[in-house]
Each structure stands twice: as structure tokens, then as C-alpha cells.
């Protein structure tokens, strides 16, 4: 054996030398050089006189591709338009898109790779990735716009969440049912939720709501690979729940709704915004979903009657005719818009350095997304969601697959809810 080992040194050496040569570069220079940001604006990594580079760390080949692809395209759409209008702070914005395929290891390397050359992250997707990068992001004071809505991360001042959080979505959604008399005090609510940040954050909301209204929550936690909800729904039925809250992926929403109906449970189903996908309307469960499901989220459906919303929809279909219309489009556009506002603020402060941008982020408020997000966004209070209103929408055969109920909805319970509390 030993000989073979000695010998394979050779190949190993070759490989490494190759890497070494490939790696040859001006190490450690690009990073800390605060390049002269034109005028008297303080620059930083990824900022030059003519451009601002932003990172997009997302999942275009993994399980979240369905959400991430239109989202990223919407990011790109916004900046294409904005650059045409002259960009921001006299600079064109350039997106560096990296696809981590939901693999933390890959994401960390990609982050390392880009971190020296970007002013901030226009988009960061995937809760395990976010969790893994959290310490690094903090020490780099890297402004990161999340493509997720967990209130648990609000305490980090460099993390920006566009729209309200899962728990508040759920509170609002349930409160809506209560208001409509679909559930009443003392009822039991079944909650079907994913293992992980997303699910548990949603659960937090339903529990809070239940506590406030003398209701109780019947928990059914599942893994992303669960697709047959028979057992879970049976448990709900046995417990006699009056409504089902869903914090999962579309697959599980369809399965749960279908089985519930087949079991003769005609109870309302309220789901967080990621639980819905227009594709569900092609599935056998479509009828039930249309009848019983309510989607609670702060992102506008394509058919929200606001000019900006329609505009974004039209522009997107024009730009990406191959992509299906999904709510992620409106969000991606709004997400980019928020970044724009922050950069603008940084420009006003004459500081586009990373620290400067984090500071700027918490000076902006009253960002009007023209209805893309249910309410104007306010980032001045660290640890608080940028807004607490949502749209309630019902699945329907319209473009984007959701028909919003008129107006937005912000319940008293949601207002009084303290995100930090547990």
C-alpha cells in the first residue's frame, strides 16, 4: 500500500499546484481598500465611482428554486429599470448572482468569494444558509435582505426583512377567521408546520393568537419530505379542530386540504404566504383549496388593484415570458426597491461603506412600495417587523392564482404582539 500512497503524492501535488497557480491574485488588497466613491461619498467594498455591486445568494437548482427563480428575476428586473433611470447615487447597480442549491457548504464558500466585492446582499435565501452565515455576516456588518420572513432574526441589525413575519401573518390570518366568525373563542386550531425556522415561527404566531383568544393549538410537525398528510389530518379530526393553520410548502397544503375534505372536515385553512403556488390549481385538491384556503401574507397578489402591482406584473411577463406568474415576483421587486431606498439613504449620509449602509437601513421609513407590500415599510426600530399588515387572498383561477380580498388587514392582536417575546 505505502508505495501506491507515495506515488499518488504526485497527482495530489499537481492538483494543488494547479489550484495554487489559479489562485494567484492580489490577495487582501481589494477588500479593505475604500475606493474613492465619487464626490465625497465614503466608499466601501463593492463600491466604485460608477458602480455598486450587490450579492444575491440564492437557490436556483435546489428545493427552493420554484420560489427563488422568479424572485431573483424580479430583483434583476428592478435594477435593470432603475439603472436605466440612472441607477442610485450616480452609480449603476450590478448584481452578482450565486446559486448555492440549498447547500450550506457551497453557500459559505460563495459568500467568502463575493464578500470582499459587494456592498451588501440584495437577497439571501435559505434558513440553514442564513443560520450558518449569521456570525460572519455580523462581523462583516454585511447588510443582507432576507428572502424569508422569520421574526427570530429581526434582532440582527444587518438583517433586513421586507414585509411582515410568519408569526404575524398567522396571527392576522387567524384573527381574520375569528372576525368572519369562521372560528370562535374556545375552539381548537390544528397547526401543520415544517420542522425548522419557518414552521416554528409560524407556530409561534398561532400559539400567541390562541393564547389571546382562549383557543388551543393542536401541533403537527412534519419534515419537508412528508407528502402524505393522512395521519396528521386524522389527528386533527380526532382533536376536533375548527380550523387548520398551515406553515409548510404547497405540496403539504394540497395534501392536507384534500384529505381534510375527503374526511368530511370542511374547516377553513389558513396558510402563510410560502404555502401557496399557482400550480396547486392543477392538482386534484384545487376545488377544496379554492373553497377553504386563505393565504395570509404581506405580498401583493398579481391581481391586487394597484397600478404599481399591475405594472410590475406586466413588465415581468414582458421581460421573462417563460416564467410563471408567482407572488415571489412582486416580492422580489419590492425587495430590490427597499435596497434602493437604503442605498439612497446611504448616499444622503455620504457613506456607502458597509457600516454606513447598515446605519442607513435603520434611518429609512415610510417606504411606499405602491402596494407590492401590504403597508409602508419602517426600519427605524431594530427588532421590530417593518410592518404588520397583510393581504388575505383566496386561491382562484386568475393570473398569479390568488384573488385578494379587498383592502389590507392588520388585527389588533397583531399590533400588540411582541416579536421578541416567546
Amino acid at each position, binding site marked *: *500500500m*505505502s*508505495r*501506491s*500512497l*507515495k*506515488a*499518488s*503524492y*504526485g*497527482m*495530489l*501535488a*499537481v*492538483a*494543488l*499546484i494547479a*489550484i*495554487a497557480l*489559479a*489562485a494567484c*491574485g492580489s*490577495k*487582501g488588497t481589494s477588500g479593505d481598500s475604500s475606493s474613492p466613491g465619487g464626490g465625497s461619498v465614503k466608499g466601501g467594498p463593492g463600491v466604485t465611482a460608477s458602480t455598486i455591486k450587490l450579492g444575491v445568494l440564492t437557490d*436556483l*437548482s*435546489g428545493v427552493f428554486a420554484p420560489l427563488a*427563480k422568479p424572485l*431573483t*428575476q424580479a430583483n*434583476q428586473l428592478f435594477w435593470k429599470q432603475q439603472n436605466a433611470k440612472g441607477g442610485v447615487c450616480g452609480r449603476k447597480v450590478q448584481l452578482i*448572482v*450565486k*446559486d448555492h*442549491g*440549498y447547500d*450550506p*457548504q*457551497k453557500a*459559505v*464558500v*460563495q459568500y*467568502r*468569494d463575493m464578500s*470582499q466585492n459587494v456592498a451588501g446582499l440584495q437577497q439571501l435565501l435559505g434558513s*440553514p444558509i442564513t*443560520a*450558518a*452565515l*449569521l*456570525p*460572519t455576516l455580523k*462581523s462583516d456588518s454585511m447588510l443582507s435582505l432576507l428572502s424569508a420572513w422569520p421574526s*427570530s432574526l429581526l*434582532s440582527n441589525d444587518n438583517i433586513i426583512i421586507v414585509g411582515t413575519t410568519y408569526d404575524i401573518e398567522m396571527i392576522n390570518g387567524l384573527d381574520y377567521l375569528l372576525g368572519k366568525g369562521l372560528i370562535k373563542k374556545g375552539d381548537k386550531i390544528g397547526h401543520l408546520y415544517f*420542522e*425548522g*425556522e419557518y414552521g*416554528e415561527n409560524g407556530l409561534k404566531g398561532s400559539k400567541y393568537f390562541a393564547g389571546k383568544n382562549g383557543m388551543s393549538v393542536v401541533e403537527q410537525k412534519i419534515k419537508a419530505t412528508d407528502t402524505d398528510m393522512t395521519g396528521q389530518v386524522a389527528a386533527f379530526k380526532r382533536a376536533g379542530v375548527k380550523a387548520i393553520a398551515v406553515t409548510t410548502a404547497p405540496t403539504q397544503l394540497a395534501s392536507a386540504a384534500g384529505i381534510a375534505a375527503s374526511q368530511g372536515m370542511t374547516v377553513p385553512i389558513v396558510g402563510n404566504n410560502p404555502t401557496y403556488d399557482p400550480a396547486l390549481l392543477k392538482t386534484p385538491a384545487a376545488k377544496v383549496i379554492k373553497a377553504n384556503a386563505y393565504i395570509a401574507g404581506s405580498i401583493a397578489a398579481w391581481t391586487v388593484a394597484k397600478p404599481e402591482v399591475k405594472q410590475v406584473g406586466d413588465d415581468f411577463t414582458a421581460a421573462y415570458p*417563460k416564467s410563471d406568474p408567482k407572488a415571489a415576483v412582486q416580492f422580489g421587486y419590492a425587495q430590490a426597491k427597499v435596497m434602493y431606498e437604503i442605498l439612497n439613504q446611504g448616499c444622503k449620509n455620504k457613506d456607502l461603506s458597509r457600516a454606513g449602509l447598515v446605519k442607513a437601513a435603520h434611518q429609512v421609513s415610510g417606504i411606499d412600495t405602491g402596494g407590492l407590500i401590504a403597508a409602508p415599510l419602517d426600519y427605524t426600530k431594530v427588532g421590530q417587523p417593518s410592518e404588520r399588515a397583510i393581504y388575505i387572498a383566496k386561491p382562484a383561477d386568475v393570473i398569479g392564482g390568488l384573488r385578494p380580498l379587498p383592502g389590507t388587514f392588520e388585527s389588533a392582536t397583531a399590533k400588540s404582539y411582541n416579536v421578541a417575546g416567546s
Partner: protein
Amino acid sequence: MSDRRRLIARVAMIALVAVLLWLPQYAEAFWLQTGLFAMSAAIGAVGLQLLVGVTGQLSLAHAFFVAVGAYGYCFLAGGGPGGGVEVPSGAQLPPVLAMIGAVLIAGALGGLFSPIAGRLSGIYLGLASIGLVFIGQHVLFNAKGVTGGFNGRDAEPFNLFGFSFSNSHPDLTVFGVPYGGLERLWYLGLALVALSIWYARNLTRSRPGRALQTVRDSEIAAAVMGVNVPVYRAAAFVVSSMYAGLAGVFLALAFGRVVPESFGFLLSIDFLVMIVIGGLGSIRGAVAGALVVTALPQLFDHYSGSLPFVTAPGGDGLQPADAARFLYGAAVVAVLIFAPQGLAGLSRGLVGRRAVPDQSVRTDTKESTA
């Protein structure tokens, strides 16, 4: 072996060491980070090689023991005064002890598995061990107190005699290049990999190693020559678990924070692929395999711009990630069929040595032929 060959090996060896030691001088963060993951993989792969290649036992549970090592370290070293929101508990040991402790824990759990590891052989063990990965991840998600659940938990920076393997204290600059956490961990990694290889080589050339190889080649011969086969099978499993544990510790350090998703079934498969590509039975082969398997997708991603047929991420057409996975699968198929001795075998060819048929891939010959 001939002087010529010995010379080549020597030169290659020296060149290799030199390059590795000098690399942090000009390697960008991307390369260092990739390197760190590759080192962690290498340690784990060597461990799996001892089990699969040397003892002829298949295991798909490697990811589980890597997780044990990673979380074990975070638990033993961590637990300091947490910054507010519920921080998972920890033993607050000095990192060195934590590292050793984590490896021992991994070994112990491997030992607990011995009732199965000792009795099952070959493919059955492989299939049984899949279970550990899924059960392990379930625990990682649910034992919040220790693992931090889905949030994962931070890995205490390693330090040795007060010298911290993190970005600061003390600040360090070598030839004008600032040596931060990545650079420092690079050298720690090199040391650990060297240690792993050294131990594995000693083992395979010594009494226990011979016993393991005989268990692989002829279980009964081993038994009648006095080798307690179940015990040695279990022992091999324990040792490879400890390697996985060490790999986990270093992985945690390379990540800075561990999350359950990093330790799925796919990781187990990656390790298996590493030793297959590297060549079953060969220690250095395992290291080479680890390097290839870890670096390949990263390089694809890094150079996706300049690759033919591959579009930039987000565009329509072949994504770099998919391209990497295609290549990955195809490479394994090709190696198995055309170079059953993997990279090690090929390199042997390069250095002009007659390859000896690798027994470990050729377990039971009374195979039905189709």
C-alpha cells in the same frame, strides 16, 4: 521500487508540502475556504477508507458521526455567557479538550452501534447504517438544548496556548499578508490531515491493520488465525467514527456555525464517492478523492462564466450546479468501470508501477453474473 520512482515520489512530496505551506500567502478567501472544507472531507474520507477499503465494511452513516463530532465540539467548547436569546448549553472546556472529547464521543457512539456493526457485513451494514443519518438529523432538530435546533449553534474559535485561530488576538501579518481565521485554520487543518494520514498508514501496516485486511479478504481465515472478527469489525467502525468525529470538529471550525442541514444523507454519499474515486483501499487516494469531490462543484460555480454549455446562475439552460452534479455522477461511473482503483491506481500507472488488483472492490466472487 526503482530509484527513479522513489525520486519522483520524493520530489512530488516536497513540492506538495511546499505549495501547501505557502498557499495562504496569495490564495483568496474562496480557495482557502474550499481548502478547509476539503481538509475536513479528507480526514473523514481517510476514516471511511479504513472501514470500507481496508476492512471491507460498507457504511452510509458517516455523515452522522461527522455531525456528532461537529456538535460535540460546539457543545464541549461552547456555552459561554450567551448574547441574550436562548443559547444552547455547553461545557465551556478549552477547545483542545473539546476537540479530543468530541472525537471520543463519536467513537463511543460508534461503539454503541457495534452490536450491528459487528454482526452485519458488507452491503447489509451499509443499508442499516442509513438509519443513523436520519435519526441523527431528527435529534439535531429536536434536542434544542444542546444542538440549538434548526438555528444550529456557533463553534467556539479554536485556540492553542492562547493563540486564537480566528481573525484577531493576536493580529498576525506574515510578509505583509494579514493572517486571519481562514489562514490560521489552514495550518491547523494541514496538521490534522497529516496526523490522520500518519495514523491510518501506521495502522494499515501493523498488527491490527493486517487483521482488518484479512477480515476483508477471508473472514474465516482471520477467525481461525485468532482474530476476533466481530470485535475487529466493531473496532474498525469505532475508528472510522472517530475520524468522522475529527472531520466534524474541523468542519465546525471551518463553518463557524453548524446547522443540521449540513449533515444529511447526501454527505454520507459524498464520502463514499470520495473513497471510490480515490481508489478503495488507498489512504492517499481517499485524500485525493476528498479534494476532487469537495472542490469540483465549487470550481464549477467559480468559473461558470467561462465554461462552455453552462449558463450563469439564474439564466435558462444548464446551471453550473447541475453540470457539476452530472459530472460528479458520470465520474463515479467512469472510475468504477474503467479505473476500479481510482485516482490512486491511475497515479500508480503514471509512476509506472504494475497495479495490483484491488480486492476490496472485488468482495464476494460467487456473485451471480449477468
